[in-house]
Structures are given as structure tokens and as C-alpha cells.
């Protein structure tokens, strides 16, 4: 069998790119990560592979492009079946997709309402962010991971977003661990996995990036 060519058009700080890298790592797959300069100028390959959104991540499987991180992770799971990331039964899969969709719709934007705010972060933004994490805590219940005993799809969709939490906590002046201890425990559990630990950036570096981005946007 000829070697597969797996490429990700990447940005180190993007939680969406991290999802794809974690999924590939969980499957034991080797890939090339090509860093995109999202401020300086996107590559022709990126613009041609993702003409609709022009965003990272783009996953190229033998030069065929796939876009949108959740869809890419789903594709990786379907193409390389071991170990499975989604539960085996249809209902379990529907629940996993529901929570992935909830995370996609809510977490990054709610965090953004805190780190993008000028001056002190609005109380409402912090309340909303915590509320979302509490809803995820309810979904976790007393399970180790979202679908049960094993690290899977929803964990992969959620954990990269937590690399931005240090920045959000500093700018919002609160701690996730104090407000959401169950979620915090889940985060620590995920960070023990090699696939997560080697992909997630140093939270201090993310914080520096957010500060720089705020200056660029004239928020500081």
C-alpha cells in the first residue's frame, strides 16, 4: 500500500487546528503541519483549498481538501477506524454530535466576549461563560470523559479550547477551577494524554498571543 499523504494547514494557536492534530495523533497517524501566516498573507494552497471560508484548519488527504474542524475529525474517525472516537451506537453518536455542536456554537464566542472586551470584562460575559461550562459539567456527570470511559470525539472537540482559558481567566479575573471543579478535573484528565499534551500550546504563550491580538485590534 502506498504511503498516505496527510497535511494540515495549521496555526499553532488555533484550537480548531489542535482538534485535527489530536485526532490524527490518537489514530497514530503521521502528518505534515504547514504553518499559515494568518496576518501576513494566507498561502495560495489555503485560499484554493478553502475558497468558501479561507480559514484553517484545512486537512489534505492525498491532496483532497477537507474543511471545518468537526467535519475533519469525523472524517478521520471514519477513514481510520482504530481506535474509534465516536460511540458505536447511533444514539450515542447523535449525543456526541449534539455536544460537539453545542461546544462549537458556544464556547469560543463566549470566551471571546471576555478576552475581546475593553477594560474590565462584563459581568454578563463571565456569567454566560461559566454557565456554558456548567452545562458541559452536567453532560459529563460522573463519567471520566464525555462518552464514558474512553477519550473520544467530544473530548477532542472541547479540550483545545481550554488552552485559551488561562488568557480568559487573567483578562476576566476569575478561575475556572473555582467555578467548575468537575470541568477542571476533566481538563486535567485530558492533559495527561500524550496526544493532547504534545499538541496543546503553553497557555502563557496563548495569553501573549491574545494580548498582541488585542493591541492589533486597538482594544488595549
Amino acid at each position, binding site marked *: 500500500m502506498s504511503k498516505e499523504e496527510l497535511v494540515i494547514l495549521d496555526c499553532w494557536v488555533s484550537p480548531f487546528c489542535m482538534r485535527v492534530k489530536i485526532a490524527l495523533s490518537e489514530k497514530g497517524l503521521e502528518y505534515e503541519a504547514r504553518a499559515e501566516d494568518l496576518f501576513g498573507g494566507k498561502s495560495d494552497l489555503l485560499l484554493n483549498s478553502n475558497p468558501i471560508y479561507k480559514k484553517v484548519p484545512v486537512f489534505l488527504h492525498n491532496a*483532497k481538501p477537507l474543511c*471545518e474542524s468537526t*467535519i475533519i475529525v469525523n*472524517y478521520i474517525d471514519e477513514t481510520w477506524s482504530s481506535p474509534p472516537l465516536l460511540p458505536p451506537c447511533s444514539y450515542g453518536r447523535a449525543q456526541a454530535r449534539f455536544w460537539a455542536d453545542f461546544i462549537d456554537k458556544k464556547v469560543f464566542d463566549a470566551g471571546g466576549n471576555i478576552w475581546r472586551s475593553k477594560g474590565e470584562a462584563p459581568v454578563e460575559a463571565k456569567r454566560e461563560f461559566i454557565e456554558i461550562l456548567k452545562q458541559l459539567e452536567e453532560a459529563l456527570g460522573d463519567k471520566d470523559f464525555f462518552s464514558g470511559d474512553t477519550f473520544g470525539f467530544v473530548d477532542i472537540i472541547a479540550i483545545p479550547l481550554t488552552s485559551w482559558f488561562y488568557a480568559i481567566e487573567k483578562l476576566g479575573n476569575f478561575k475556572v477551577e473555582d467555578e467548575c471543579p468537575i470541568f477542571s478535573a476533566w481538563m486535567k484528565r485530558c492533559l495527561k494524554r500524550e496526544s493532547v499534551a504534545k499538541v496543546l500550546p503553553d497557555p502563557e504563550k496563548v495569553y501573549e498571543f491574545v494580548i498582541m491580538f488585542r493591541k492589533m485590534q486597538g482594544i488595549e
Partner: protein
Amino acid sequence: MEDEVVLLDLWASPFAIRVKIALEEKGIKYECKQEDLFNKSHLLLEMNPIHKKIPVLIHNGKPISESLIIVQYIDQVWNHKSPLLPSDPYQRSQALFWADYIDKKIYGIGRRIWMGKEDQEEAKEELIQTFKTIERELGDKLYFGGESIGYVDVALVPFTSWFYTYETCANCGIEAACPKLIAWAKRCKENESVSKALTDPLEIYGYLLQLKKRLELQ
């Protein structure tokens, strides 16, 4: 044991219509329960506590929410006929991408048109561009699904009942700008699953005028 399938529904919702088309395609018998979005039932709040929205499919007592997730579920569980998603993972990822694109764009942009505020003109331009992009993806295929209706067709076709509203509110010129899409819409209606489920465009227009009034009062 026979399956018990219940749909928490709102007759005008394009999202609920997606589910109805999918159930019809698979020949599934189901019970439809109408919701009032300004007075939601205990059942809806219990079955979808996170979003409190329709549609919700309740299959043997277990709820599934979010229309595209429901359609995927239906396609997987009742896989004996009318496959909606392709079997090839790459083709499937493309179908998921385009349905997601439709979800990100159509309802939100359309809302800015029928709410008729200052951003209506801008929304009109965006809507036409979005439809043109979708039309390019259709290309010369009969359906997005190829020879028969598929996942993307199911995701998009309910919104065709809203074209009359978009035209009447803002004179969008969809037919002139996107003739292939209009032809596709007509073709879709030749399928019984679609024609049974689709709402009447005039009734939708009336509904949206009422909804706009209620929203403005809030």
C-alpha cells in the same frame, strides 16, 4: 416491538421540515406534536433543555435535537432504504460541509431580510451570493445527492418555501440570479417526501409577518 417515533414540530419551521422529509424518505410512521414557541410544552423543555428548540425527534422515548443531527440519525438507524448520505467518507464530508454552510448562512441572512431593518439591502446581496455559491456546487447534477435527493437537498429544500417572502420583502431576484437553483427546487417537489412536507409559500409569508410583529413587541 414497533418503534415509537414522535416529532416535536412547528409547521413553519424549515428545520422541522428537514426531519419530516427524511422520515418520509425512509417510510417511517411518526406522530407530530405542534409546539407554540411562545408557550413551550413541558415535553419540549424536558426533551431539549439545552436549546429549548424544535425540532426534537423522540425515538422510543429518547430525544435527539438539532435538525441535521436528527437527519443523520434517521439515515443511520433506518438504513434499509433511501440513503441520504454517501457511503464514501470523503463524499460524506463534502455533504456535511455544504449542509453546515447552509445552516450558517440561509436562516440568519434571510431573517435580516424579512425583519426589514437597515441591514436589509446588505442582507439581500449576501443572500444572492450565498445562493450563487450553492448553485455552483450543484453544477449540472439533478440533485446535490446526485441522481436522487440526499442530505444537502434535505437541508436546503425547506427554505425554498421562503423564496416568496424574500422576494416580496426585498425584491431579491432569486429566479433571475439563480435559475438552476429554481429548477432544482421544482425537481425536488416531484419527490413525494418533499411535496408532502413543504409548506405553502403564502402561508409562510403570513406567518413571518405575524412573527415579526410579535418579535418587535418583545
